[in-house]
């Protein structure tokens, strides 16, 4: 495996905390290896900043294999960067060219206040799930697993929505900062399964109300969320959420 190196210019959003005003800072990195991941490139920058008595750039990450949903950078205006169906931790520098300038910002939304630099507070997502994103079954009271067959196609569809990693790219990409794709994905996941039916109405009402309470905007069908979602959640989740919300209002 041969590798080539390049020079990359970075414009990174720096912000001390949620109260302070942020600004862009520029940095230049030489010897960026094409096989580095994007986050490893930032690690290298931080090592340099630390040795120069600078303030390392803070950003969220954990698994670095695209499943935990911690990372959520907005790169050159696009949540998770240029590669389709790829979380930023899975993006590699071979997607860039020598001399490129790369702008890195946090996921911006009123409901996601900045903690420091590129780290934002996404606890609003926890509160949306807390409002109703579950089946209220107690430990120990579950019936035998094969008692209720689930149509294979439906089970697959449920999975397609359940695969959401909760990164918040959908919010960052939406001109309205709506959390509809995230919320709709959980509603659609549980709707597809028989286990989700008893609480169907209560769930959609509670989750949508919570979403609004958190300060996320409404959906205007821009579909930017679907375009940036690293796991390909379909915007049909939002249609399903809205349909169910209306039905639930009249059912009650």
């Amino acid at each position, binding site marked *: 495996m041969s590798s080539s190196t390049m020079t990359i210019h970075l414009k990174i959003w720096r912000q001390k905390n949620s109260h302070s005003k942020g600004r862009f800072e520029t940095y230049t990195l030489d010897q960026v290896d094409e096989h580095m991941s994007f986050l490893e490139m930032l690690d290298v920058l931080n090592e340099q900043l630390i040795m120069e008595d600078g303030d390392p750039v803070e950003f969220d990450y954990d698994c670095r294999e695209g*499943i935990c949903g911690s990372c959520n950078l907005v790169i050159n205006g696009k949540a998770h960067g240029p590669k389709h169906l790829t979380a930023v931790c899975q993006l590699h520098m071979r997607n860039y060219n020598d001399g490129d300038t790369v702008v890195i910002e946090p996921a911006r939304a009123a409901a996601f206040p900045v903690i420091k630099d590129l780290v934002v507070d996404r606890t609003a997502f926890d509160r949306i799930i807390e409002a109703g994103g579950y089946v209220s079954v107690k430990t120990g009271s579950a019936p035998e697993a094969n008692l209720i067959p689930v149509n294979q196609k439906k089970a697959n569809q449920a999975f397609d929505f359940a695969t959401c990693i909760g990164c918040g790219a959908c919010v960052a990409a939406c001109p309205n900062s709506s959390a509809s794709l995230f919320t709709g994905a959980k509603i659609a996941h549980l709707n597809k399964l028989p286990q989700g039916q008893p609480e169907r109405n209560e769930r959609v009402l509670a989750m949508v109300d919570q979403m609004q309470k958190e300060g996320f905007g409404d959906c205007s069908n821009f579909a930017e969320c679907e375009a940036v979602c690293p796991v390909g959640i379909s915007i049909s989740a939002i249609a399903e959420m809205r349909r169910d919300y209306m039905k639930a209002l009249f059912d009650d």
Partner: protein
Amino acid sequence: MKLDSKVPSGPLEEKWSKHLNEIKLLSPNNKRKHSVIVVGTGLAGASAAASLAELGYHVKVFCIQDSGRRAHSIAAQGGINAAKNYPNDGDSIWRLFYDTIKGGDYRSREANVYRLAEVANEIIDQAVAQGVPFAREYSGLLDNRSFGGAQVSRTFYARGQTGQQLLLGAYQAMMKMVHTGKIDYHPRKEMLDLVVIDGQARGIITRDLVSGAMEKWAADAVVLCTGGYGNVFYLSTNAKNSNVTAAWRCHKRGAAFANPCYVQIHPTCIPVSGDYQSKLTLMSESLRNDGRVWVPKDPKDERKADKIPEEDRYYYLEERYPSFGNLVPRDVASRNAKIVTDEGMGVGATGKAVYLDFRDAILRDGEDGIRAKYGNLFDMYENITGENPYKVPMRIFPAVHYTMGGLWVDYDLMSNVPGLFVAGEANFSDHGANRLGASALMQGLADGYFVLPYTLGNFIADSDLSRPDTDHEAFEEALSASKAQIDKLLAIKGNKTVVEFHRDLGNILWDKVGISRSREGLQQAINDIQVLRKEFWQNVRVPGEAGYYNKYLEFACRVADFFELAELMAEDALQREESCGCHLREEFQSEEGEAIRNDEKYSYVAAWEYKGLNGKLEEKLHKEDLEFEFVEPTQRSYK
């Protein structure tokens, strides 16, 4: 220190039910008066928190991530075992128990492992009821597959994301109880110490990772579900934030650390590409079903893989293990990869890789056939390496994946410090010297959903507990100690970063406490670790201050603990003069390179008691003898 496993008497099949009948109960009215701290929100922590809160306890739950849903359980790919015997292929609780204890090379407790196999079926019921979208057959019933060389199909799965789906189920169950007010939920808070009062665990100290505030929390019991310590190697398949700090600080407060040298190294990971490498990515071992592992016979062979003819290729697993071939267990596959690369036959720019070649499988099944089976894995490989595995062989190398060692617990999952319970990968209990595929998810959820809710209640009902109180001087002492350590780290202002120290520590461990170990190498490792640890405390450079979000300060605190654990791992590997499971001592292997176990002398759990740190780590070894009443230990053979 006295180690009492408290395994109930009686026939193996009746131990757990007998214990449940004898356990003391608390009335709902009384449960309400008691509080429990749960640290960590992976499968074990989230399931324990949800279940304890449902029973009526007041639960405080803590995690270091920004949401409980991000714990590293989320990354588990393969599946979860349970002996439902849906495929009618002869599976049973006994067989699941037997496979697990044999797979662990007879270094785990019979009673614990049997209970694990027994409650596994209930986990599947619970997960399905929560809406976990497991794979299903056309009939709508649950699908099973064979995994990790098992002779029966007992693995339930949700595509390649079983851990994610099970964790989201447990996380949602936990958030449901947050909604009721029975759980206080604290993301982005890291446990830095255990508070022990009159010999009992009565609380913890945390650091708020956003504000830097140090806080005291009291409760009637503490449940530690903080995962494994694979990141001591710096490079591993663990998430970047996985660490040993909470468990290690409990160890320093009196909890015994058991079998620290048992580390599972997974054979099929994407190799290291350069010094900047921050973590390793696992490729499902199902790839070995169709891929053939080889290296060029001539170490100096510079030709591209597809230009190397058959007679110049060394299919070392097929040649050395004719009956299992490429499907030998994880430890055997990893060891052999190290042997051939040490002999100079490794491939790629670093020489630290072997080929996993699908050429023959593609000729047989066609590219579409292989894509249908492994398409997502091939895509992932291409995304990371930039190479197309349909055209050129994959390059793979072993990587640290799971740690079987952990805090010592009794049958009730309580450590030797009363009131401190440990569940999931953080404890040492069920996997012996080697864990089987699809058993980690099973253990985490068994502990959290179906063991702790009972055994923790028994402890509380049986104890005379004063009201938890953070005004006690022990809280102040622990908080000051944690704060002093942070101040000390920040004050050093040396010339080497935390990452550099961690990487150097990882290299020592990988070379000498990794896939194979020797007396000489381990003694050298202990010395090297001590020297590097001393340098760390003199020359580490931690940026910034304590009063705000500071990721490198978090890392510095964790690496400080890894430095101490590392020495204990080497000590433990040194005293175990046998080979078992993942622990291979070069002095104790047959002429063919097979591990030789010594049941007469080493059929015990090594539980270490912390005695102090003064240049050298002082630890006292205690032995819990393992007795095999129901199975006969045999030597594994994969020839």
